[in-house]
């Protein structure tokens, strides 16, 4: 991170990532806060895939501020959730 220029550094934001269901078997935690310097959901996912190797093999959807989004959505919110297949009822 020390190699980034100052103006980029100012655009970084803190994002809370929530993990649910089988994803918590991989992350071993339900929530964490990350400093994120990118723009799109897919960039955040790349960061997470580097951190959790097997996450990429799992089926999940992404919610931003409680609404489902796709990989090309811009990250605007503070809360991102990774949601494996639902099993209600």
């Amino acid at each position, binding site marked *: 991170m020390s190699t980034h220029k100052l103006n980029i550094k100012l655009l970084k934001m803190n994002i809370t990532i929530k993990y649910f269901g089988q994803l918590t078997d991989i992350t071993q935690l339900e929530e964490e806060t990350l400093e994120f310097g990118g723009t799109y959901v897919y960039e955040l996912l790349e960061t997470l895939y580097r951190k959790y190797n097997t996450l990429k093999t799992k089926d999940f959807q992404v919610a931003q501020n409680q609404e489902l989004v796709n990989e090309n959505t811009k990250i605007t919110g503070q809360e991102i959730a990774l*949601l*494996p297949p639902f099993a*209600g009822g």
Partner: protein
Amino acid sequence: MKDKKPMKSVFKEGAITSEFIGNSIYKHQTKTSIGAHNIFLGQVRADDIDGKIVSAIEYTAYEDMANQKFHEIRESAFEKFDLTCMHIYHSLGTVKAGEICLFVFVSSPRRKVVFEALEYIVEAIKADVPVFGKEIFEDESHQWKVNS
């Protein structure tokens, strides 16, 4: 008569008891415009998966989003169907095999309405609400349930 309340949690800790359901039915006997009730109950199955028996499901949820989704389903059901009442309860935490984890209750003056509405609501819950189920086997190993 429509009891469209503001958003409230549909989640209950642990199993939904038959007494709770009976009592909920009882409370509707003062609403004399109702002619038909339809109730769906989801019950935890002791499935045999490769020789291991499911003894319980541990439910978790993305609660804020789930309550928002339940609220949207509720609003949309009241809009689509002539319902007098609608109630949804879903368990969180451990529900043992044979116990009830989902209780959906719709009421209307007429029967055709309740059949359509109940199926619509249950399918929407299964598809749209972020609830997760960890199937616990008798040997305490687990697997994650996926709706079919």
